[in-house]
């Protein structure tokens, strides 16, 4: 079953076509989902790509979380559907309360645009299931606000629950505990600052992002198979199973 990837587009998002290109190249179907939609168009997995949603006004990701589509993303995540936020998408997921913590300005006030080395800390997430534990990946980052921060209790919980998905080997931004990516309690919502789609074919200088995108497509394929067996819920989102309440 072909995985269907929904790629969320806010005003100011600018990496949506990169994701569409990368995942369609890998055999998935992709659809760009405008922020004013109330449904995911039957997507099996959602990517919130990088960019500057709503101009990063107020704080990065702060306005985007009020977009109608975020309610659909929330329902999808609550029903164990895969959701990945890349860069600005990670910031949106934190502001939306779907991932803990926040991303502040890089230490040293430096915009970082460079390939970085990452270590896969857990393979129990929708973004790393196809990777090897401890695998080192070379993937570019491109951000000003990638310095992850959270309170001590949250950090301890992330560590205890094995929810730090990726760590920097050479921390480029001052991020707490070298955190490059985390997942939620269900392990189906992942946020990361590096851009796997920019390391997805040899012409880009690295193909190390492919194993992450492959994991996502596998998770999407599995979610799609589940969706196909679940009767339509009668909601506006059609084939998406909907779980009442939010976490």
């Amino acid at each position, binding site marked *: 079953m072909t995985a269907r990837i929904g790629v969320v587009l806010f005003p100011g998002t600018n990496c949506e076509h990169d994701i569409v290109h990368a995942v369609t190249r890998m055999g998935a179907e992709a659809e760009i989902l405008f922020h004013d939609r109330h449904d995911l168009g039957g997507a099996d997995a959602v990517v919130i790509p990088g960019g500057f949603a709503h101009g990063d006004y*107020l*704080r990065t990701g*702060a306005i985007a979380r009020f977009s109608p589509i975020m309610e659909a993303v929330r329902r999808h995540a609550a029903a164990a559907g895969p959701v990945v936020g890349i860069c600005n998408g990670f910031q949106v997921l*934190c*502001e939306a309360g779907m991932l*803990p*913590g*926040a991303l*502040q*300005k*890089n*230490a*040293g*006030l430096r915009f970082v645009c460079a390939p970085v080395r990452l270590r896969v800390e857990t393979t129990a997430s929708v973004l790393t299931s196809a990777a090897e534990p401890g695998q080192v990946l070379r993937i570019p980052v491109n951000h000003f606000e990638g*310095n992850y*921060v*959270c*309170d001590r209790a949250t950090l301890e919980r992330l560590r205890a629950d094995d929810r730090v998905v990726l760590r920097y080997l050479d921390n480029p931004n*001052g991020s707490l505990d070298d955190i490059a990516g985390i997942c939620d309690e269900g392990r189906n919502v992942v946020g990361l600052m590096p851009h796997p789609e920019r390391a997805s074919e040899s012409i880009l200088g690295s193909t190390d992002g492919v194993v992450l995108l492959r994991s996502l497509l596998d998770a999407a394929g599995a979610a799609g198979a589940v969706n196909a067996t679940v009767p339509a819920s009668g909601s506006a989102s059609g084939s998406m199973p909907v779980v009442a309440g939010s976490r």
Partner: protein
Amino acid sequence: MKFEVTVEISRREGILDPEGTEIERVVPALGYTNVTGVRMGRTMRLVVDAADEAAANDQVDEMCRRLLANPVIEDYRISLSALETA
């Protein structure tokens, strides 16, 4: 009753303030060698129509928690004054 509200948002203690740090680092270049504790923040001004000052304060406090500030990294301070109406 209308209240003029000022919300001052600053980074929480212990949260890195790279802008404040950078400003503090360059100020001595101008000859001001006695400046420490520079913190960068932002200010919002709004007018709220509410029954009384407590109600206005409560509403803005809730707005701060839900949108205007990010409690993970930011503190906020609210000050209000009644706006004279002609």
